[in-house]
């Protein structure tokens, strides 16, 4: 029986006396149920064989955790056994009990969509507080039940489903929301009104790879929201005049994160509290017609977060048209940390001029130069941040190109309070025949505006050399 199945050795120290009294069992079942609620559900159920007193204790658990890839005593359940197990627990034994936490993690097998849908539907009717569903397949459940789930405190929905959003929805207890792969639709009968989603106590809102296909714009009311993240979410662009927009009312918002092609209009009503922002612009190379409006859209977004202290601005698959974005830049009056991955020297110069109190500048992939333009002349004016605030300059992906060396020389020669400049050579230089020693010596020889500055040169083989006061 159990001794023959025992594959686990007891590793905890055993110092207690063998005739210990069974005081724990005197506790009320609800307390024992709380302990069992922390176990994987299958182990909680197996406590029914401990003694006669324990035969029904497991039914007091308030938390269900089903995972098809979690081994039980070193073995994984077969698909049919797993399905049978979930059915027995969810639909038979705990059909009338109160479950507050439900976690369904299906990563090992593919299931019949109706089956998984049934499980989810059962749970939605049960005054659940924490809901976590992870499944790569498609499911279908009642949107009506979903939006009636007012007991939800934490929602983690990573499943392909379609939600029909009503004109007004409220989740009065929801503090954490994380959705992925969800398709949001709405009734097209009411055209003019925005859909209102009310989250009075929400702290974190994260949406990834969702489709916002509502006919109306969406207005999110989240007065306590601290973190907002929207990644790779798309709206239907079939009707130009009916463009989907998301308005966010979050006066306490601190962290804002966006990743996408800027087609979705994002409007932050009162964004003065946003402190950290990450904007990642990803555009398919095929969508050339989007490039024209890209600059305008980016400007709209950046203007809303112009008061941030930390900004990561990254571009992926965006061609050199990224310059449009920099023609009308807002002033980043409070920006102290700026991280970029792809930028031309011209764009960088504009950014520096618009960030008067910048302290740290990080270039993840060096700096490029538009070959159609003349060489960058830096002599015209020194950015304000050089005079009294720029202290750290990290230059990764240094390619030893002329325009990069010009930039390094310009910063070294004009940044009056520079403390550290770290130049990290690009990996491909390992295979070139460029004399890196010469390059390094050349850079070290440039005049330094701030004599205290330490210039660190990190070579392809990882070795670092510093030049500066020690």
């Amino acid at each position: 029986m159990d001794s023959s199945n025992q594959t686990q050795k007891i590793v905890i120290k055993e110092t207690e006396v063998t005739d210990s009294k069974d005081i724990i069992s005197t506790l009320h079942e609800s307390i024992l149920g709380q302990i069992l609620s922390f176990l994987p559900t299958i182990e909680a159920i197996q406590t029914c064989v401990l003694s006669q007193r324990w035969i029904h204790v497991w039914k007091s658990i308030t938390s269900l955790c089903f995972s098809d890839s979690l081994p039980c005593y070193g073995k994984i359940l077969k698909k049919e056994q797993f399905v049978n197990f979930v059915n027995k627990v969810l639909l038979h034994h705990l059909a009338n009990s109160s479950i507050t936490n439900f976690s369904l993690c299906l990563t090992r097998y593919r299931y019949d969509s109706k089956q998984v849908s049934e499980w989810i539907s059962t749970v939605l009717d049960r005054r659940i507080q924490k809901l976590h569903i992870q499944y790569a397949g498609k499911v279908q459940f009642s949107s009506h039940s979903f939006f009636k789930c007012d007991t939800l405190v934490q929602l983690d929905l990573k499943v392909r489903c379609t939600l029909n959003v009503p004109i007004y929805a409220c989740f009065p207890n929801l503090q954490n929301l994380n959705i992925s792969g969800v398709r949001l639709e709405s009734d097209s009968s009411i055209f003019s009104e925005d859909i209102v989603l009310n989250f009075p106590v929400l702290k974190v809102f994260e949406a990834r790879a969702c489709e916002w296909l509502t006919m109306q714009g969406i207005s999110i009311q989240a007065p306590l929201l601290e973190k907002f993240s929207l990644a790779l979410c798309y709206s239907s662009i079939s009707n130009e005049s009916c463009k989907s927009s998301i308005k966010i009312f979050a006066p306490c918002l601190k962290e804002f994160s966006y990743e996408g092609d800027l087609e979705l209009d994002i409007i932050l009503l009162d964004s003065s509290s946003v402190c950290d922002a990450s904007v990642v612009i990803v555009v398919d190379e095929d969508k050339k017609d989007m490039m024209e409006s890209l600059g305008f859209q980016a400007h709209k977004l950046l203007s809303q977060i112009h008061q941030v202290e930390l900004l990561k601005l990254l571009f992926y698959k965006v061609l050199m048209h990224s310059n449009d974005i920099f023609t009308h830049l807002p002033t980043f009056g409070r920006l102290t940390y700026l991280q970029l991955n792809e930028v031309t020297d011209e764009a960088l110069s504009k950014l520096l001029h618009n960030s008067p109190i910048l302290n740290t500048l990080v270039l993840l992939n060096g700096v490029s130069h538009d070959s159609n333009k003349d060489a960058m002349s830096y002599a015209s004016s020194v950015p304000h941040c050089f005079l009294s605030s720029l202290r750290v300059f990290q230059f990764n992906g240094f390619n030893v190109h002329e325009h990069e060396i010009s930039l390094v020389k310009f910063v070294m020669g004009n940044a009056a309070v520079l403390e550290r400049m770290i130049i990290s050579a690009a990996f491909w230089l390992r295979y070139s025949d460029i004399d890196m020693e010469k390059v390094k010596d050349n850079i070290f020889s440039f005049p330094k505006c701030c004599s205290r500055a330490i210039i660190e040169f990190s070579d392809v083989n990882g070795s670092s050399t510093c030049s500066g006061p020690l």
Partner: protein
Amino acid sequence: MSGISDTERMITLKTVEGTLFDVKSSIAKDLKTVQAFIDDSDDDVTSPIPLPNVFTRELSRILDYLNNHHRFRSGIEKADEEMARYDAEFAKSMSHEELKALILAANYLNVKDLLEFLNQTVADVIQNKSVEFVRNFFGIENDYTPEEEEKLRNENEWAFNGVEQD
């Protein structure tokens, strides 16, 4: 007695062995059973409150936990890492007997956060262990006959026989 702010007031608790503990009223708030007693007495508590089910060792541990957590939470810097380290040490410092006794005391005194932490700790101890181990841990006497146990396992085959046979 007027003029003393609520947080400075001291409450005296008496354990089974008669040991007296002076506790700040802000800490006593976390001992919901004690707080209920205070509320019922119209805040007029001058003599020590007797705790007939709580031993000195357990009360001392509970107060230690609460004092530390209050300290972590009141700091300006987020002390999450420190708190996690403290919790880990706290759990490790107890034998299974002490852990079980502490759960009973925390349950009696209704210390919600500590109780949840202890429940999680016990669950961690018994997770993925054999039935025999769990019985030993809790000190449970197996009152099933082998036939009864066999029958129970067969009836609940869906929960017991779910492991792959090979």
